[in-house]
């Protein structure tokens, strides 16, 4: 994952769009509401979760509510 290295704004959350099934658990659970359900569709036809781009506190709640092993990665610091 080369993308990870280029992230400057930390903490942050990385979503692998095509692994997301759009269940919405992370969007609902995020305490600071920085995740939204994308208007776009991924390759499977789901509306994946999307990070607004700022405001992540790195709490990891989205990671633990997400049923997909690899869809969400949280970088704390």
């Amino acid at each position, binding site marked *: 994952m080369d993308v990870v290295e280029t992230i400057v704004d930390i903490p942050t959350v990385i979503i*692998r769009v095509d692994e997301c099934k759009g*269940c919405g658990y992370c969007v*609902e659970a995020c305490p600071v509401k920085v995740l939204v359900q994308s208007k776009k569709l991924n390759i499977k036809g789901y509306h994946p979760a999307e990070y607004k781009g700022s405001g992540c506190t790195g709490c990891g709640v989205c990671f*633990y509510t997400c*049923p997909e*092993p690899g869809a969400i*990665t949280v970088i*704390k610091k």
Partner: protein
Amino acid sequence: MAKNRLGKSSAFYDIYERNPSSDKTVTHYCPGCGHGILHKFIAEALEDYGVWNRTILLSPVGCSVFAYYYFKVGNIQCAHGRAPAVATGIKRAHPDSIVISYQGDGDLAGIGGNEIIQAANRGENITVFFINNAIYGMTGGQMAPTTLVGQSTTTTPRGRDIYNEGYPIKIAEIISILESPVYVERVALADTKNIMKARSAVRKAINYQVENKGFSLVEVLSPCPTGWKMNPVDAKKWVTNEMQKYFKLGVFKDVGKERKSRKVNGEKVPLNKVPDIIDIPSDEKKEISRIEKKSEEKFLKRIKIAGFGGQGILLLGVTLAESGMMEGKNVTWLPSYGPEMRGGTANCHVIVSNQRIGSPLVDWSDILIAMNRPSLDKFEPKAVPGSLIFYDSTIVNRKPERNDVKAIGVPFTEIADGIGSTKVLNMVALGSLIRFTGMLSPETLFEAQTRVVKRKEFLELNKRAIKAGMEFIDSLKES
């Protein structure tokens, strides 16, 4: 635990190669399924405790039957409900391993109800994760033992009725009243707080096994959006609002601190002592050479008999195998047929040899007996060059195409009709086979008949059929 990064655990495979689906990066679970969350907690704990490389995970029957696609640990998929018994065996044979039994409500509370109670009562040193979603998810939403009162499923369309189906089973309570278990807790994959509690429970249960404390069970209330016909977020709320009302969350038993760690007897029994312990003749090689000496020449006939159900294919195979056994040969008999009593395809594999037989499967046949056209079409290409093909020239309307095999057309059906019953065509085939090959003596065959044929009134008719088959071969040889 301070981790800078929360991501996919290394106890998962990077790519799920075992998954036959085209996308090998995601699980097969539906959006919002609780299995994925629990999988993550287990994988994370195994990684953090550094035990994933000595863990054996038992997957059940249910949606999580394919857990072995994902976990980079030892995996076994158990018969329905039998995971605790399998876990017992594995843990006792490999006390160093971490054995995790992952079961759903149909598996653990339904068909495997007694297994889990007995394993818990013995205090087996294993960890059980019981995922309770109050429904049979994989099979399409039927009532489970844990379905809530009033909950409608495909088998309780008007809702679960206590006078007809009783109350939902409370597994955590049942297990916790037993003396042996160390740790029993019920958690829910619902709101964030409870999800984090579930995570701690998973870690604690695995840790108790690492410390050799004994049996622990975590019941996990889990959303099944597909089975409940809800969207995932509503399903989560339903866990909180409905399931938690009946299934109370909390620690039902935790005596991990008081219990001493078990002594693990790590002494391995050397392999050469095993025959003594289980009392089998250890000089097995001698035994084999004795059998093989009977005839110096290697004798091996791989026979495939194929036709449609009702032709007596299997009985033909049984008679052949029984006769071979009576002549002191090693034999195998492997039937393969459809669910129908009559019609459908039937075939059986018979091997007769004076050597040890490795596998009962006959992929390549030395002798093929084809009782109908489709059988000949299907198995002719799988005959060994130089082998024999017997076919029923009455109903097979073509000759074998290959010229590197010996094909013998015998009108089995016609001969059998001539004797008085089409039913005995299998015996006609048997007679012609042994006459042509000389692999067994007719007397053995008659004797074997009396053992395998249940209806004794057919014995005489069968004998005549066998003789008729033999006579036909003789007439071929003369001409």
